[in-house]
Every structure is written in C-alpha cells, then in structure tokens.
C-alpha cells in the first residue's frame, strides 16, 4: 500500500453548541479514490471544509502528506497541494469565467500587469485541455448555468495539478454525460498518483469510481470498506433498516376533493406543467437540480409570476401576485433554504412560529402576549421541538428542530395545501423519521402536500405519486405502490443516457 496522502484523526467541530462532527477519522492514500458517504447532516461537508482549510477543527488532528497540519486558510491547503471543490460553489458572480478560472494565477503581460486578452486566451486553452468547449470564458458567471458553474469549479481545481483533491457532492447538479466527464478527470488524477476524496449520494457513481468507501453517521466514521453492498451501507448510514426509516404510506382517500390543480403552467424554467392534487395526497416532485422544481414551487406560491397556464385552488381559479395572496388561499411553502428563506434566525421560536397568524393574535394591531405564548407553546409541544423555551432564538436549535418550527408555523396558520421543498436536507436521521411521520399524518388528516426532495429514495417511499421533471417539463409520472428510486433517477436522466 502506498503512503497516506491525507488523514483525519478524531476530528470534531461544533457550531454554536450543535456538534457537526464528533470524532471523525479516515485515511486516504496517494493514487486512491476515496468516497465519504453518509446521510445529510452526517458531517461530511464539515469534514471537507476542515480538510480544505476553510473551517478550523475544535479537536483532532489532520495530516497531509504524513505531517500534522493546522491549516490557516484555503491558501495553506493549496500550498500543500490540496484543492477543494466545495458544495456551495465559490465562484464570483460578477466576474468572467476566465477571471474565475485563473484567479490569483492570471496571465501577466510584458509589463508585469495582468493581461485580459491573454487571460481569456489561456482560460480558453485551459477549458479546451479539459474538453470543455461550450463555456465562453468571456461570459459572466451569473449568466451561466448551475452545471456549467460546477464544471468551472472542477476545472479550476483539477488544473492546479492537485496532489489531493476534495470534491463535496460534485455530481449533484451534473447530468450523466457531465458525470462521465468528471470521472474521466478523476481517473486521470488517480493514474498520476493523486488522491481524490469525494462525497456523493448516488450509489451507482460511488461503486463505479471509488476504491474505498468510508461511511459516516452522526458526525463519526462507522467503517471503511473496499467492497460493501448497498443495503448494508444504508443500514450503517442510517442505523436502521431502510423500511423502518420510512413509515408506511397511508392509502389515498377515495373520491377526495381536488385541492390544487395546475394546467399548463409556464414561467421561467417551467414549461407547461399540469397536475392535480387531492386532499390527503402526497405528490412527489423529483429530478435533477436546476430542472425547474424551484421555479414551479415559487410560481405555486405567488413568489414568481406564471407566464401561462392556470391555477385552480379548491375549485377557484387563482392568480397569485404575492406569497401573501397564496397564504390567504391556504397555501404554505417550506422553502429550499430554511436559514435564508424560512426562518428569522436571531428571533425567538415564538416570533418564528406565530409570524403568519399574528393577525389572529392581535386586537387593533396590538399583540396579545398570553395568547401568542400559548400558540407558540402548542407548536413546541405538538411537534416535540427540542428547545430550552419559546424565547430561545431559533438559530440556536438544531436543523431538524428548526424545520419543525417552520412546519409548525404553517400548521398554526391551518394551511390546507403544503408545498414542502427538500424539508429533510441537513436533518439528522431521527428527526427525519419524525418529519416523515408528520408529513404522512398531515396527509391522512386531509392536507394536500406537494413534496420535492433531492433524495429519490425519500420520494419513492413517501409519495402517492411522483412527477419527475426534466428541463422544465414533467418527464414522467409514477404511481405508488411500486415506485423505486431507480425509476425516478432513470426518468430524470433518460434522454441524456440516450444521447
């Protein structure tokens, strides 16, 4: 076996009292492709950030090339030949692709100054060297697609000839063809003797490229394997059997009223989407990132204007101009990023829970504190939110409990139609299970639920029907029982495979 390229020994990190990593260890060697797998919230991203020099660990040791290092920043990692592609992309939106690719290694002219034309030329050559011909180095990053941005990040890291390359979820916004391209780059690096460490949720990918796999659960490693079957891996990741993680799907009520009906809805990135949703139904929406789900949810909630089509809510045709109008019609949205779009992190659990129903808790605009406290407390009690009290800032809660407060806000508002967008992202397994139970309980109580998830497994187990979106249209509609994650993924990438 070759020498270890990177080692993490008992690395721990907490954010504001919440432990992201407790004691994570793994070793990857030169010439190896090493996958880190685990649930959302298992600590993989935090570990990558620590290894990339972006976050400092609280405890534990990181060794690179055999020496214990204390990385003062990403630059220190670069100096040791370690480069990282972080999950949340780090491109500069109002600068050109070329400037981003060659940041801090711009081409200088004879005068010693950066030459723009030479930088463009070199960026073009660099892209061509890696087989990327379709991205214009003169374009601004804000004008290129998510997959193109991901590609640029990868090219930038790879072109620095890393000894060690860390990739955090590099394939999440890539389609089949781009994934193949990335794997080509990874294999080449391996041949050159570099070490590649990556995280992924897609089992097929992990199997096709990884030499070894380290599994994480709850901020710790639970084992490193060269060969492991998927069922066993999932059991290690979740600490329970797959079937037990998902509660049984309640039957669809017969002849239930139609709660929400979209016909030929169109708008930015969404083309002619139609569906009808019944009370008591969980309608899944799946597909690869960037294929219109986000925009569809925003349109249904009045946060983006539909350019065409029709929306019927409880039998009435509606045209929402603002979320306020949608809320008044009984629609709720739990948005993509609860920290920036959902919660007011510095405000209390109470303030967050009662925000939508304040009108009910006031007389002539004056708050009734006792009633407000009671309402907030009811959310905490009924959803079992773990908090020191309702006056605790919501930002101090764990991800799962934050999500419960956000769901509780809408339950207080008695919204009948719930749009849930990736609600289990960054939530620990136990809370995930609670959220699943809650979603299904709400459905059985007659709520109509539209459920988007980036996790196909989740969709397969929790939804009565799944719409798979591709390039802004519904590419497939799958019906329970018998939906599998594979069906969803293959519907999402079908024509890319065909191409």
């Amino acid at each position, binding site marked *: 076996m070759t020498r270890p390229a990177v080692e993490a020994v008992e690395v721990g990190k907490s954010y504001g009292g919440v432990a992201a990593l407790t004691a994570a260890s793994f070793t990857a060697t030169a010439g190896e492709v090493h996958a880190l797998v685990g649930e959302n919230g298992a600590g993989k991203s935090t570990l990558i950030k620590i290894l990339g020099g972006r976050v400092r660990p609280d405890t534990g040791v990181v060794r690179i090339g055999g020496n214990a290092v204390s990385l003062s920043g990403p630059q220190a990692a670069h100096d040791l030949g370690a480069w990282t592609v972080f999950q949340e992309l780090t491109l500069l939106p109002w600068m050109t692709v070329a400037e981003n690719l060659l940041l801090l290694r711009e081409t200088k002219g004879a005068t010693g100054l950066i030459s723009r034309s030479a930088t463009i030329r070199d960026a073009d050559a660099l892209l061509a060297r890696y087989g990327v011909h379709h991205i214009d180095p003169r374009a601004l990053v804000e004008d290129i697609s998510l997959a193109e941005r991901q590609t640029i990040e990868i090219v930038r890291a790879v072109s620095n000839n890393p000894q060690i390359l860390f990739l955090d979820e590099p394939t999440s916004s890539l389609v089949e063809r781009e994934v193949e391209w990335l794997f080509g780059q990874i294999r*080449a690096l391996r041949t050159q003797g570099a070490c590649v460490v990556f995280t992924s949720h897609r089992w097929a990918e992990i199997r096709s490229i990884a030499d070894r796999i380290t599994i994480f659960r709850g901020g710790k490693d639970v084992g490193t394997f060269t060969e492991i079957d998927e069922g066993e891996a999932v059991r290690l990741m979740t600490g329970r059997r797959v079937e037990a993680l998902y509660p049984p799907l309640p039957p669809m009520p017969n002849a239930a009223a139609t709660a929400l009906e979209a016909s030929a809805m169109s708008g930015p990135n969404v083309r002619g989407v139609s569906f009808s949703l019944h009370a008591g139904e969980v309608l899944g929406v799946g597909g690869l990132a960037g294929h219109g789900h986000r925009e569809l949810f925003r349109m249904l909630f009045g946060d983006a204007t539909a350019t065409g089509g029709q929306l019927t809510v409880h039998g009435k045709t509606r045209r929402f101009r603002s979320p306020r109008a949608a809320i008044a019609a009984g629609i709720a949205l739990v948005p993509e990023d609860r920290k920036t779009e959902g919660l007011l992190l510095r405000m209390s659990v109470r303030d967050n829970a009662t925000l939508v129903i304040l009108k009910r808790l006031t007389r002539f605009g004056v708050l009734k504190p006792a009633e407000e406290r009671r309402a907030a407390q009811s959310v905490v009690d009924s959803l079992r939110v773990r908090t020191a009290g309702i006056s605790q800032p919501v930002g101090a809660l764990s991800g799962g409990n934050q999500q419960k407060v956000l769901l509780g806000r809408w339950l207080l508002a008695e919204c009948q139609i719930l749009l849930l967008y990736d609600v289990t992202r960054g939530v620990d397994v136990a809370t995930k299970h609670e959220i699943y139970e809650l979603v299904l309980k709400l459905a059985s109580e007659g709520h109509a639920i539209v459920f988007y998830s980036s996790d196909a497994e989740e969709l397969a187990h929790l939804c009565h029907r799944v719409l798979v979106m591709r390039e802004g249209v519904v590419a497939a509609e799958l019906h329970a029982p018998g939906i599998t994650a594979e069906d969803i993924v293959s519907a999402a990438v079908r024509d890319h495979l065909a191409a």
Partner: protein
Amino acid sequence: MSASTPQTVLMASGARRSRTSHALVQNVGLVLVIGLLAACIIGYCVLFVVTQHRFPGGFELTSTLDNTMPLAFAALAQTLVVLTRGIDLSVGGVIDLTNAVAAQTLTGGPVATTLWTLAILLIGAACGLVNGVLVAVGRLQPILVTLATLSIYQGIAIRVLPQPGGAIPPGFTAVLANPNWPTSLLYIPVIGGLWAIFRRTRLGVAVFAIGNDAMAASSHGISVKRTVILAYTLGGLASACAGLFLAANATAGDATTGDTYTLTSIVAAVLGGVSLFGGRGSGLGALFGAFVTVMVVNILFFAHIDPLYQTFYEGLFLLAAVVSANMIGRAVRGRR
C-alpha cells in the same frame, strides 16, 4: 505525469457572443455614464450658445476641469471602498485635513513644497489605513467607522487651520490647476491610466473579488483583511489628492470646504455605475460620474435656474439617473 491528460470532450463548442457584445453588456454602467456625459456636454454647449451667443472656449474648459478634479479624486476614493462592499463617509474629513495641512505647509520653495506634497499624500493614506484597520481587524461596520473618523479628521483639520487662509504658492497652482491652461487634460488620462493599471494588478482583482463574495474570495486564498486595508488606504491617498487639487484650485485652504465631498463622491460613484452593494463598477465610471455631476451644475447655471433651487434639480437628476440606469441595465441583461 504528462502522458495521460484526459481527452474526454464534455461538449462541443456552441455559438458564442462576440467580444464587443460581451464588453457592452458587462460594462453597461460605464457606457451609460459616457452617454450621460455626452448628453450633458451637448446640452451645456447648446445652452451656452443660446445664452452667451458664442461657443464655450478655453476659459470654460479650464475652469470646468479644474472644478471637477477634486471631485474626480474623491469619487475614485469612494469607489475603491464601495467596491469592497463598504462606504467611506470620511472622504470629506480627509479632504478637509489634507487641504488644511496644504494651506499651512506649502509656503516654501519648490523642494519644500514637493516634500510636503508627498507628506500630505502620506497623511491621507494614513487616514485611510486607520479606517481600513478598524473595518478589517476591528470588525466594525464601514459606515460607523468612517462616521466616527470623519468627526476626528474634521476636528484635526480645524486644529491645523482654524481660519480659512494660507497662501498656496502660485507655482503649485500652476502645476495642478493652472488657470490659463487646462492642466487637468494631462491628469485625467493619468487617472484613467492608473485605474487601468490598478485593475490589472492582483490587488485590483482581489478588491473586486471580495466585493463579489468575501467568503468565496477567501476560500480561493485571497486575504480579505489585507485587501480591505489596502483599498481604504488607497482611498485615503485619493482623498488626499482631492485635498491638494482643491487647495491648488482655491489658492488657499479651508478646513471645512471638503465636507460636501463625502456625499457628492457617493453621487458621482453611483452615477458612474458603481454598485453600492460592492463588486461592480469602475473607477473610470466614477471619473465620468464626477464630470456629469459638475456639468449638471453648469447646465443649471446657464439655464438660468434660480441657484436656490440647485440642489432640488440635482436631487431629481440623481434619482432619474439611477432609476433609468436600473431599468436600462435590466433590459440589456434580460435580452440575453
């Protein structure tokens, strides 16, 4: 190591936009301010001919340029800071201070004057350095830091020069703001050139990068603290230039004339297409913005607007310019 460069082609090249098309769209703010300046100059000339029955000549050119130079430097100072997502309210204070020091010290021969000029530039840079350190190391909000240092610099300026006065040597004025010859025609290309150089240095790239996204920039290995400190320091230096040009133009010093530049520098930068949210804009735009600001005053003068209403029209003009620039910018981007 070289043998196995992968040749997987991800995707073939598609249609690309031309270089000019990119340049136009990405510099829409600069293009707009140039258009605005052209419109102002035409409007000015027409009004001048109508009211004065002759074309504006050398005198008008010289005085307009000389009046603009301090604002041009102040706008540049503001731009350097605003690009990092900050704001510098102390620009006026630094101009006051350097202007006051100039009035007290520039009384000797050419050698002493030159040395003091350099010293004054250093004073300006030091003021900027203090701002930068407080913002970057002290982790304080730029608007509050510079509000406090504005008060401090203004106080020191009055201590240095309690009464307006001092005699700026004619030689100094002849070099910076010669009333008989448009010396500024030399300085404007110099400022433009310096900006072009700055934009092509690592520091320039870093300033834009942290204005885009400080977190992302630092994960690429850019030192945010160092960049912020240098941007404020350069800003202080530019403010000192404004103070010197102001002294040369007025041939005397005054510890309070700089005050107005805090706000007008913001106006000029905004007119020049510099985004107050950081990361977008250019020093050239700010330079043109300064000229537009001064030209608007000239136009109001020759349009026989009651000078009492001057700020009213300036305010309306600023709003109209910002709103229409927003709309045009959105339209241009939307068409892509």
